[in-house]
């Protein structure tokens, strides 16, 4: 070992004594803290570290004339369970990047009257998935609020870009739709450009309902993150589905589908319509259907490959 990195012995004696005294002082401080730590206490406030990680969305200072009830509370993956004990894993596995909770109440109130949970789900599609998963059967759609909104009793859920927003009222007199509209407007103004929800289905008919299926679409373990839409066409209702992914992944998924159908003994015929290549499936379980393996989209339609549908897909 070279002499250059040996500790200097020229330091004054008093400083070495001071350093030696520091050790028992530190040990004492740790012991004292340990004696006063209560494991039963739950820290309900987001940590400073978590607050630094979560970027606050632009929030209105008041909603329906109600000022904010305390500061907005940000949460991230590290401490989401502090706010939604028992349901955090669902969000964490569905694209979650952050949550901001903001409350509103009349001045001097002891409890909030309006609570908004703004989940940033990473992508508009994942926000849509969360909205669809949490929709109650009695929820009614509302037009013109965010990208999509549904009201049910004292709750209103909406999506706007990557945000999935739950709005709850604790005062039956409050107009939830009006509050949601004001909140969405504030977000739009504050965020500037918002990535809109792109369900981007071709115009196959009049949309009736849209669903998000996270995994194993129709029992096929390789079809995941699927958007399904029901349409009204001239011949009646039918269902279409699509997966949006990278060009490489779409090819892999498309091949997996062809392999599955072949192994299952289901007849598949490749055909073409004005340059559009598609596969027609004669399926004893799903009926006649067809699918197109596009560049970054796998699109299937559970109906016969009518020229009008193929034309709509080609045009898209």
């Amino acid at each position, binding site marked *: 070992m070279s002499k250059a990195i040996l500790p200097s012995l020229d330091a004054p004696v008093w400083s070495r004594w001071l350093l030696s005294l520091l050790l028992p002082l530190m040990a004492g401080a740790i012991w004292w803290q340990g004696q006063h730590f209560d*494991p*039963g206490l*739950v820290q309900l406030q987001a940590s400073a570290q978590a607050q630094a990680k979560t970027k606050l969305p632009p929030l209105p200072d008041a909603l329906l004339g109600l000022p904010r009830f305390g500061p907005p509370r940000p949460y991230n993956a590290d401490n*989401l*369970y502090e706010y*939604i*004990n*028992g*349901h*955090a*894993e*669902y969000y*964490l*596995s569905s694209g979650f990047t952050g949550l901001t909770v903001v409350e509103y109440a009349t001045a001097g109130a002891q409890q909030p009257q309006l609570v908004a949970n703004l989940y940033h789900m990473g992508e508009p599609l994942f926000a849509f998935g969360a909205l669809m*998963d*949490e929709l*109650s*059967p*009695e929820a009614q759609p509302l037009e013109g609020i965010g990208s999509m909104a549904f009201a049910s009793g004292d709750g209103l859920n909406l999506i706007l870009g990557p945000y999935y927003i739950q709005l709850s009222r604790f005062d039956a007199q409050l107009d939830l739709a009006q509050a949601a509209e004001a909140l969405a407007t504030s977000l739009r103004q504050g965020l500037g450009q918002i990535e809109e929800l792109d369900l981007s289905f071709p115009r196959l008919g009049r949309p009736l309902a849209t669903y998000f*299926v996270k995994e*194993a*679409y*129709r*029992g*096929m*373990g390789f079809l995941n993150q699927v958007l399904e839409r029901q349409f009204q066409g001239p011949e009646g209702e039918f269902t279409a589905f699509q997966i949006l992914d990278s060009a490489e992944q779409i090819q892999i998924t498309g091949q997996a589908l062809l392999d*599955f159908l072949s192994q*299952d*003994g*289901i*007849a598949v015929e490749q055909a073409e319509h004005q340059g559009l290549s598609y596969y027609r499936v*004669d*399926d*004893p*379980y*799903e*009926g006649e259907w067809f699918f197109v393996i596009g560049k970054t989209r796998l699109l299937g339609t559970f109906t016969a490959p009518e020229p009008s549908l193929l034309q709509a897909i080609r045009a898209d």
Partner: protein
Amino acid sequence: MQRREFFKHSVASAAALGTGLSVPQAWAQADGKAQVRSYRRLGRTGMKISDISFGAGKLPSAGMVLRAIDRGINYFDTAPDYGRSEEYLGQALKRLKQRDKVYIVSKFCDAGPYVTGKSHLQPGVGKAAYKKAVEDSLKRLNTDYLDAVFVHAMGEGSDLASERRRLLDEDMLAAFAELKAEGKARALAVSSHGPHGMEELLLEAVNSGHYDLIMPAFNFMKFPRVPEVIKAAQAKDVGVVAMKTLAGARAMDLDLAGASFEQAAFKWVLQHPQVAGLVVTMRKVSDLDNYLPASGQALSALDQQLLDRYAGLHGRDYCRTGCGDCEASCPLGISIASILRFQMYFEDYGQEKDAMSQYAQLDRKADGCQGCADAPCNQACPHELAVSAKLRDAHRSLSFG
């Protein structure tokens, strides 16, 4: 396979059901796919069901139902709160056009996301609510009758007196009598996977004379008193369908000389002559391939070895659903068995979201176990589980704590 072949198979299946306990060999081998090989009489219900039947809790599509029918499955267990399950079954029935060739059973239950202690109709809701629940199911199912309607999840509440009231609720019994007279429901059934008093409640159901069918949790980890219940059921000609047959399903990597854990577990249940069949959740087409080879097969020595190996690995790690012996020991009144069941859903069944949602709704969670020094639950478990540690683990998983 063309669609006409599918219907031909369905007709063959129906013919088989009418004539005996097994489907024609030619069809059982159709396309080289695993098929149901055994049908058993379900007590006095008049049904003769596939020994391996379909739990439609995570039903992905109508097509999946038709695939199952094509493989010989004829008994489908659904509920209003199983997502779109009833709707998909309804689509399948519409296409099948042979309603009398399959058995559809559902629950006295509200539609919508499951809420512990609320979704399943409780005493006091009145006769009309019970009738409406069934009539709503019939609409979703595109049918005019249920083969059985269940009072579901008996013992989900810790107050056994209250659960007994639910079991024999006069409004429910009156509603069922009317539904039966109107041809809308054919049999009355009850299910239980505990955690409270499963055996007592099911015995009471059998002895009451009101119930035609019971569905207990039952698997090779040997619920100590279920055999007593199913023998009592047999004596009164009450049908038995088993559920929760995979005992936690943690042995996917436990294959032994080609034997399959799931198939061994199914064969173990089906070796009991009192059990007509079992329901198992089937979410993927591959589940049909993995499960159906057990149909009509006897438990072999190799199967038993596999189950013994599993029991050796997990015997002190597996909470017997429906046991509940530890419940009274907790000074905080924590619903131990429910929490460990939710943990099983989370860890073994891959149903994390459902498990966490159900855990979130409990009044008393396992965070109370953190500071519990005595852990009387450990001494209370007859199977020597480290209950307290398992509860703390469950809290970490289910609350992301």
